[in-house]
């Protein structure tokens, strides 16, 4: 089975709790990190996201990390994290990683990095 960076997710709605949805993701690529602090995970990682719709404008997300190879017990990375509903015409800004832009950023803000191909 091929591992993918974002993994594969399955979701189901609970019949007993109408406003809960739980999603499980398996198979993330172990080269990725869990967060910007560098926390690791293995290829056995399972992520469980529980979305609870509190009311019309609010959803809570609880995100659990289950990875027996890296952690002795499951732990919550998010606990009832609040998401607020945006207007229906909300336009998500484009945010794509561009290595050519990164060069400019490093020149302006960060440390210069070696340029591999001067053609770019």
């Amino acid at each position, binding site marked *: 089975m091929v591992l993918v960076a974002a993994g594969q997710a399955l979701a189901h709605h609970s019949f007993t709790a109408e406003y809960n949805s739980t999603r499980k993701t398996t198979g993330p690529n172990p080269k990725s990190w869990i967060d910007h602090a560098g926390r690791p995970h293995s290829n056995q990682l399972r992520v469980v996201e529980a979305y609870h719709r509190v009311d019309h404008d609010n959803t809570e997300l609880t995100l659990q990390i289950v990875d027996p190879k890296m952690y002795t017990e499951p732990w919550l990375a998010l606990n009832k994290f609040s998401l607020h509903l945006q207007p229906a015409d909300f336009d998500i800004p484009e945010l794509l990683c561009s290595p050519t832009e990164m060069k400019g950023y490093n020149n302006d803000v960060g440390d210069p990095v070696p340029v591999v191909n001067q*053609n770019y």
Partner: protein
Amino acid sequence: MPKRFLVSAVVLVALSGFSPFLGAQTAPAKGAQAKAMPPWDDAPPQKAAYAGITKGPAPRRDLSGFWNGEAEGGVQATGALEHPALIPGHPVDELGGQADEKNVARPLPYTPAGLAALKANKPTAGARGVRPGLQNDSVDICDPVGFPRMALSQFRAAEFEQTANQVIVVDQISYAWRVIWTDGRALPDVKSGAEPRWNGYSVGRWVDDYTFVVQTVGLDERSWLDNAGRPHTANMRVEERYHRVDSDTLELTLTIDDPEYYKQPWQALNKFVLHRLPDDFDMRESFCSPSAIPGYKKLLDNVTADK
């Protein structure tokens, strides 16, 4: 990994006498069937899988679902299908203009500025292709593919989802999504100073029950139109015309309108056929990873050495 590297590897591997994709072909689903495991990393079926399938009537004002662009030639390694930069055996000029299958010349109507921009772009593919290492295609170092190149280089699978005021398109090979607004809003004024986007700003409307027309502006001029290095300006307008022919078939006609670089609008795709994929199709993850590039180049070198 860079998408164009992926094309090169597929071609080389196929030439070497085998193809990893042959074993991955699957027929379209013919109904709900129990599966031993959930689908994972599906490859879009090839053209033969669609021969003789039963087609129903087109649903009204509905594009939703997964669509296969690969079966009918969506992998346009040497340039947009309607203006390929290289057909074996056909003459080409220095600009990648080429006669069609009937030997009728169909050069693109470049303006002097467009011609200068074309010459500044150095692709590895097509009639103007340079040797690897001499190119300046920023996709090779994982810059975003952008629109419309995502439809004019490696159109494999795409998912369309419709909401009350949007059509959302998720493209496999660039692993990017586009929002097409359907709430009646006007396009933004691209000369107002708004920051351009790799995938642009799109609005769409149904012109009849089976034809959805999208206009896109605000495109970042750093992207190329296709693998042949065809350029565009930030003032380009792209029209996509999706015509739902039947339950299985969607036709896409894509027109480039960029007066600064092209004297007249031209069609990059003309009734290009997309086939419907099963509802449980699992679109392959396709991220460009700079850390994967060295390993990929090594693989490519090994395949080349074997030949």
